[in-house]
């Protein structure tokens, strides 16, 4: 079991990877990636039960589906540093002939990815299918997902949310990156979504709030709580309250860095705030 300090070191290194990846190609989505770094690091290194290696079916192990595919930098970095593919391959992010497409895909056969995502709102349905396949296969492992909060404006999510509770798909933990931001501004200004906790509860889900969504200890505690609530007849939702751009002071508390890369000077500043821990790729 990795110590908290090891997870912390990995988090800082993943942040550096994210910043360097998007800087190199002057494109990509650093804001949401940085906001979810602690979560994805904790999920892959402490929460999920994973086999060695990768196969598409993922029998006998927990699965993860990234629905908000634009935060691919954090996904790729965590996958690479978990050993799914060589860390050096992060150098190819968004370049031609790369397996690391702008948004994750199975098309180029990148280990660790089981579905394409990017066009928003589709991940929960896919995860529900995978969760129901696990039930059919008498596989007791769980399915985890991550969705943007703005992504919940897509109607397909609510079809899936209704279905999951109605059909008692209780082997899924769906996490919402609750940062209150989307491309055009704050979600409350673009399209207010009301009380998400009450909405999920009204649809029949069990909801766990993680108020400090950028604090590793809070995430570990909250996700263990969420896991303990699976298998009880209800799907489980985690509202992960995060700060977009977390860990880089000038990227925080704004939607400005949703889909914008830092320039040379900004990168230097951002990297100074996140000194190398495990070695850059």
């Amino acid at each position: 079991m990795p110590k908290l300090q090891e997870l912390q070191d990995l988090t800082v290194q993943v942040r550096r990877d994210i910043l360097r990846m998007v800087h190199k190609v002057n494109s990509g989505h650093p804001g949401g990636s940085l906001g979810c770094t602690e979560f994805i690091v904790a999920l892959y290194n402490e929460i999920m039960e994973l086999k060695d290696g990768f196969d598409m079916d993922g029998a006998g192990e927990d699965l993860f589906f990234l629905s908000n595919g634009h935060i691919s930098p954090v996904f790729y970095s965590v996958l690479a540093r978990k050993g799914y593919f060589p860390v050096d391959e992060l150098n190819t992010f968004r370049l031609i002939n790369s397996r690391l497409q702008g948004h994750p895909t199975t098309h180029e056969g990148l280990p660790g990815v089981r579905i394409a995502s990017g066009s928003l709102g589709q991940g929960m349905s896919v995860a529900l299918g995978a969760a129901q396949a696990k039930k059919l296969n008498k596989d007791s492992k769980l399915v985890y997902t991550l969705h943007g909060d703005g992504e919940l404006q897509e109607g397909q999510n609510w079809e899936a949310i209704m279905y999951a509770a109605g059909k008692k798909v209780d082997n899924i933990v769906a996490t919402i990156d609750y940062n209150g931001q989307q491309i055009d501004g704050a979600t409350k200004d673009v399209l207010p979504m009301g009380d998400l906790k009450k909405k999920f509860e009204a649809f029949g889900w069990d909801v766990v709030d993680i108020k400090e969504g950028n604090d590793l200890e809070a995430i570990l505690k909250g996700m263990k709580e969420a896991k303990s609530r699976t298998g009880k007849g209800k799907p489980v939702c985690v509202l992960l309250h995060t700060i977009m751009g977390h860990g880089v002071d000038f990227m925080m508390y704004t939607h400005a860095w949703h889909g914008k890369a830092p320039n040379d000077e900004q990168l230097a500043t951002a990297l100074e705030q996140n000194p190398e821990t495990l070695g850059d790729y």
Partner: protein
Amino acid sequence: MKKYIDQGKNDTRSGFGAGLAELGRTNPNVVALCADLVGSLKMEKFIEENPERFFQIGIAEANMMGIAAGLTIGGKIPFTGTFANFSTGRVYDQIRQSIAYSNKHVKICASHAGVTLGEDGATHQILEDLGLMKMLPGMTVINTCDYNQTKAATIAIAAYQGPVYLRFGRPKVANFTPVDQKFEIGKAVMLNEGTDVTIVATGHLVWEALIAAETLEKQGISAEVINIHTIKPLDGEAVLKSVKKTGCIVTAEEHNYLGGLGESISGLLATTQPTPQEFVATKDTFGESGTPEQLMDKYGLNNKAIVNAVVNVLKRK
């Protein structure tokens, strides 16, 4: 010409239901999903025999396509069932990203295609679905012509790796293909050899093409009739071999001429062997309410329309 006997009118969707039921007995990985149209899709037998392998999604087709994609992760072979309109246009992006681009082993089974859906009218009568589906890279597109062929196709696609769109219809139509005919994906079926004109037909227009060929025979015109059930991948070899002999072609389908089988064939011929071609298809229009027969007549989708098209194409040889 070769005689085909109608073994008794039946609907292609019942062929799907029978094929699915057989798969339920023979392939434990096959699962079925439906968006509140179990009766229309004739899925009752599969459900009765395999309740644990059936997923009633409710009226939520987008969710159904996503769930189907997810079920493949875990080794299942999902068959989705709803009307053709709700199997394609309504869920295009879900199919595009979660199924086609992700290369998932999902079988999208679509009933009530085209104007033969009848009285419900244009909201439900899709004439664009073949085009939508054939444009997706990696998607196999099949349009079956009768009960026997639909049953055989349903069974065949389960063993085929990759996403498939299987299109069939609502009305009871002639059932004339041999009950034991093997369904080979991507392989045209020669129904009648001829020398003057090639008629290539798919779906409900195949039987009409055979009637048209009989009429033409009486007029001294020898028509070669080919059934192309797989729109993509297209059996170009069969088409080219035939037009080398006949020198002209009529394509017939219950679909818009834009995006359909005829368009695929014209693309093939233009780049290999330019050949006069006439299209029996709808002419960039929506359908409307009416009986299937009335609509097939009004929109020029029957044996009379095929005969007229042959007369026209022969003048252009």
